[in-house]
């Protein structure tokens, strides 16, 4: 399968799977898709999420405590694939849970579940040879992160290895919401365009419709993560699917052009 964006800008939604539990994650995922998400990043909870801010740390901790495993995340992907065939599905993980399962076993199981792509937070291009080979063998697309601190030589390498889309990090830092889309973001996307024709999704700190509108000016898609994870935390299991659906519909709604944000 290949990732496709059906909207401009596309919307990528990150969920920590297993927070508050797998069944609720499934309902939230369906609500997100039906409200207009193009791609879901299914976050595999990890005990030591060092690239994440407090919101996703807490979600991850709850999901690990529930006993959520890679196998559960892949099973959820399989069920979503059946129910919503055209949704883009990305497994979003730290490296260790994948290594523990084994690169080959993981890639085979992900393919079988109908996963499109994989993004590993703590895997850089230079260390990715075996990983990319395993993904390729199972028709999975590797997605790499590009950062404002990445020099052009690294962006070129990241662009070469990535498929589906490139995830551009809007600012130097960890995941979490912020007031404005960082000024770093536009420059990074401009630099990346020199090396790729792939869609560029911008993430980190994108949490409302006006942010999405700013992103639409220069990137192809917006990634929304912590804002949704925080909403799930506040809503509780019963209310979370409806709350997330409503929030995503709002992100999709046209905004009065107040896009003076930097």
């Amino acid at each position: 399968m290949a990732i496709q964006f059906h909207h401009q800008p596309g919307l990528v939604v990150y969920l920590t799977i297993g927070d508050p539990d797998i069944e609720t994650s499934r309902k939230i995922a369906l609500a997100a898709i039906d409200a207009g998400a193009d791609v879901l990043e299914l976050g595999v909870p990890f005990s030591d999420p060092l690239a994440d801010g407090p919101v996703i740390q807490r979600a991850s901790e709850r999901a690990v405590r529930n006993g959520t495993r890679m196998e559960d995340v892949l099973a959820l992907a399989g069920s979503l694939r059946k129910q919503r065939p055209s949704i883009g599905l990305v497994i979003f993980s730290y490296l260790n849970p994948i290594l523990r399962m084994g690169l080959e076993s993981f890639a085979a199981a992900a393919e079988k579940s109908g996963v499109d792509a994989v993004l590993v937070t703590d895997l850089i291009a230079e260390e990715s040879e075996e990983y990319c080979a395993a993904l390729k063998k199972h028709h999975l697309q590797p997605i790499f992160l590009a950062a404002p601190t990445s020099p052009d030589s690294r962006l070129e390498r990241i662009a070469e290895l990535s498929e589906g889309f490139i995830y551009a990090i809007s600012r130097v830092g960890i995941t979490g919401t912020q007031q404005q889309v960082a000024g770093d973001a536009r420059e990074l996307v401009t630099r990346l365009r020199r090396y790729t024709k792939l869609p560029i999704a911008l993430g980190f700190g994108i949490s409302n419709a006006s942010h999405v509108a700013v992103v639409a000016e220069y990137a192809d898609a917006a990634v929304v993560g912590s804002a949704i994870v925080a909403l799930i935390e506040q809503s509780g299991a019963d209310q979370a699917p409806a709350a997330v659906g409503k929030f995503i519909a709002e992100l999709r709604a046209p905004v009065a052009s107040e896009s003076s944000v930097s």
Partner: protein
Amino acid sequence: MAEQNRTELEMPPVATVPGRFDAYGGRYVPETLMAALQELEAAYADAQRDPAFASELSYLLHHYAGRPTPLYYASRLTDSMGGAKIYLKREDLLHTGAHKINNCLGQGLLARRMGKRRIIAETGAGQHGVATATVCALLGMECIVYMGQEDMRRQELNVYRMRLLGAEVRSVTAGSATLKDAINEAMRDWVVNVRTTYYLLGSVLGAHPYPTMVRDFQRVISVEARQQILEAEGRLPNAVLACVGGGSNAIGAFYEFIPDKNVRLIGVEAGGRGHELGEHAARFQGGVPGVLQGTYSYVLQDDAGQISNTHSVSAGLDYASVGPEHAALHDSGRAEYVSASDEAALQATVRLARTEGILPALESAHAVAEAIRIAPAMSRNDILLINVSGRGDKDMGILARELKLQGA
């Protein structure tokens, strides 16, 4: 003697296979940090080529930290066991009380050279935090130390020392609130402030170039010890013993002996209070290879790849992974890794204190415990060399509780 040692302290050559120790090591970090790691690698390579860097580091190690440290023949401990002769490499006599200062001086000078004025560090037992705070005071830099809340509780005196030295100590409550959690938080700080901040990592852990660079700065331990034992005995020891948390004192104590195939290298991990996952920090007994905090090495983890909690009476050994160079030495069989329990470490502390008047850090006491275990079966002509990586003043609270010294 002093002049000779000054020469010996020159910087080692650049590592032959950068960042990899056989299958282990590497760089597993968020992309945001890559530019900083590459900048650090280049700055370190540049410093290694600069005689002025080596000369300033050598000066500070000698006149500020107190190198060379003595190699002391522990005759009463030896006599009490009736076996191998035991020598102690006295890193505990260094300024700030542990080997950590060797690395902090090196990296502190490197940070200054790179123009970074904001230093962050993690600490477990607090010895690396104290050494970092000390070097930041010496060089006039801002210092922030991340420390698990549990470690702050059990190593309270070191928290006061860091604050007295002008450092800010930030409490970390996530996970088990120990060293691993402090490293996560320090790495998050570094990701956020990467453009202005130097991360002064305290052990042979993390992404390249840290495991190589920290080893290079600790290598002075075995450079001295090898020469000292040859002077004292005219021969090499049968074994070198060191405790292994992240593994910086051990790699420093082992390194120059690696080519000496007849010298056994024995790393002693924390056996804690039991064999179940979560009750110890013996990575080579309960761990499997994986990635934690930037490097590929042995990691204590469950079958879903979640990192286990660990336990040790010594905060400095209480960590779920181990330096990647130790993983390579383990797999090649060049070094052996064993464990000593909390109880054995406590008993070794008492024994060394009462036979020699030397109070080792609880971390170092693990190495002493293994020497006490194996020495009696060895011949009087055999020699064991223990790296006493730090002193035990910081542990008085724990020792008083565990050994019920109150009112005695």
